[in-house]
């Protein structure tokens, strides 16, 4: 379990996270929604020890993030930020290999190599393994990053807007993959999304943030209600049942 206990993080006078208490990681896929500036990325940064909270504690499986050695956490929790810009010319295989760093410290064992191969296979990256990252399309590159996170072999996987800059086909592909990570590999995935319908289709639980606070926290059917959605986004949202699944219409 990832537990945030009264966590606050301020940038200047604005609170990106305002006294947030939240438990994550009870179900396979949790989607984090909310308008821009709601504090989603900040929450990931605090949980992933990339930044320090001003107040409150974050524990992962009972261990305080601030006091646990970073190299131990790297075997429990993997965070993939949005907009990953890598200047170095690395091949897909190189990148996935670095995912084993928390385990291997650079000396790859037979087991490490198996993890790397499995991750490459799982994401269909076999034919691209010797390609340099800057020779890939956006969707392929995103898959390579996910493969790296997969090779890291952590229980918790945090993905910050993994659908950014992807076309429709690749968005669906990545979401299906996230579902498989949870269902087939038993991982606990927490993912920041912008699209309500993607969240409703693929997540088990949806948490909405706004102005640094948790404003809604439901399972899918509880979340996909007009009054809940209108409250989060400050604009009317209709919900229709299409083929027995709730779909939000927010284009009006």
């Amino acid at each position, binding site marked *: 379990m990832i537990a945030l206990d009264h966590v606050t993080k301020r940038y200047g006078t604005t609170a990106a996270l305002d006294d947030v208490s939240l438990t994550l990681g009870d179900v396979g896929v949790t989607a984090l929604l909310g308008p821009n500036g709601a504090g989603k990325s900040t929450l990931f940064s605090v949980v*992933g*020890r*990339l930044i320090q909270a001003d107040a409150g504690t974050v524990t992962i499986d009972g261990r305080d993030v601030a006091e646990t*050695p*970073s*190299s*131990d*956490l*790297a*075997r429990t929790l*993997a*965070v*993939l*930020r949005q907009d*990953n*810009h*890598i*200047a*170095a*010319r*690395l*091949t897909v295989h*190189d990148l996935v290999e*670095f*995912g084993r*760093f*928390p385990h291997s*410290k*650079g000396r790859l064992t037979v087991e490490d190599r198996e993890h790397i191969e499995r991750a490459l296979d799982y994401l*269909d*990256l*076999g*034919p*691209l393994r*010797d*390609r*340099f990252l*800057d*020779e*890939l*399309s956006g*969707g*392929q590159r995103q898959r390579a990053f996910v493969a790296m996170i997969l090779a*890291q072999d952590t229980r918790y996987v945090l993905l910050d807007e993994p659908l950014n800059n992807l076309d429709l086909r690749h968005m669906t592909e990545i979401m299906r993959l996230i579902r498989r990570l949870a269902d087939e590999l038993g991982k606990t995935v927490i993912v920041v999304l912008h699209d309500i319908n993607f969240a409703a289709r693929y997540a088990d639980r949806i948490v909405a943030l706004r102005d640094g606070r948790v404003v809604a926290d439901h399972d899918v059917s509880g979340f996909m209600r007009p009054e809940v959605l209108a409250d989060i986004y400050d604009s009317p949202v209709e919900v229709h049942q299409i083929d027995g699944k709730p779909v939000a219409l927010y284009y009006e």
Partner: protein
Amino acid sequence: MTDAALTRTDAPVRTRPRRVWTGALIGAALAVLAGASLFIGVSDVTPASLLAGDTDAAFLLVASRVPRTVAVVLAGASLAIAGLIMQMMVRNKFVEPSTTGVTEFATLGMLVAMVLWPGMTVVGKMGVATVFGLVGTWVFLRVIRAVPVRQLVLVPLVGIMLGGIVGAVTAFFAYRLDLLQSLGQWSQGSFASVMQGRYEFLWFAAAMAVVAWVAADRFSVIGLGEEFATNLGLNYRRVMAIGTCVIAVITASVLVTAGIIPFLGLVVPNIVSLLVGDNVRRSIPWVAGLGAVFVLACDIIARTVRFPYEIPLSVVVGVIGAGLFLWLLLRKGSRAH
């Protein structure tokens, strides 16, 4: 997976045989050039004269030619590695000690040592230069924190300006203290004065190159950025500190032995990057080998072009290095990293 066809470039996958051949070529060039370097000079030292038992020739070989060749190889290899490490730390392909003010800081250290402790040993001077090099690297890293990483050209520009300021301070004091000439002698890149007892500091540089080699994976991970490194459980600050030491010691020891060798740390890692990519564990032997070959070739040119006189190595390196750098920038299909 069918969407291999969706890649933007259809560049063929770099195959291993090509790498093996290029590697063998670099190794062969290193052996040939090092051999040639032993037998080029005003005095006649030839394999024949050595075999004939010419003691003068043997003395010259041991006292001057071997040290010079070893010094050139160590300086070339380690300076290229310093460039590579710095590029990973800054995540920018256009940085190396001489485009970031580190060399200028180390030179200022030399001047301070000359002024305050005129009789200081060369090791002492190197120590002072190293401390200044450390400060210089730290200052540069602090300054560029304010520059967005993606401003690729801005980062080396800031470094060059920083170097310009420190260089101006150094020149001013050297001028006022009448030390301009001896500072010039120190900092002009040349291996002409290298002989037994005057190059051994370069082993410090070699030791740092070994440190970089051992920590290669850490520097690769650092090259992915602070967030990636933290996610992978790496102690970002510690690796940055180790990298800073590697850069400062290599810069200072090459500076006191051979002076400033421009462009090397820029050109060599960029060429290697094209050949084998930026995974430091894979690229570091290439960088070391190509760095050594490059400086050996330039040194041999510097010694033969006006034979029996020598022209400064920094002139040769500057001309060839600048040419290569322009080629890298303007190369067809260059992504101008």
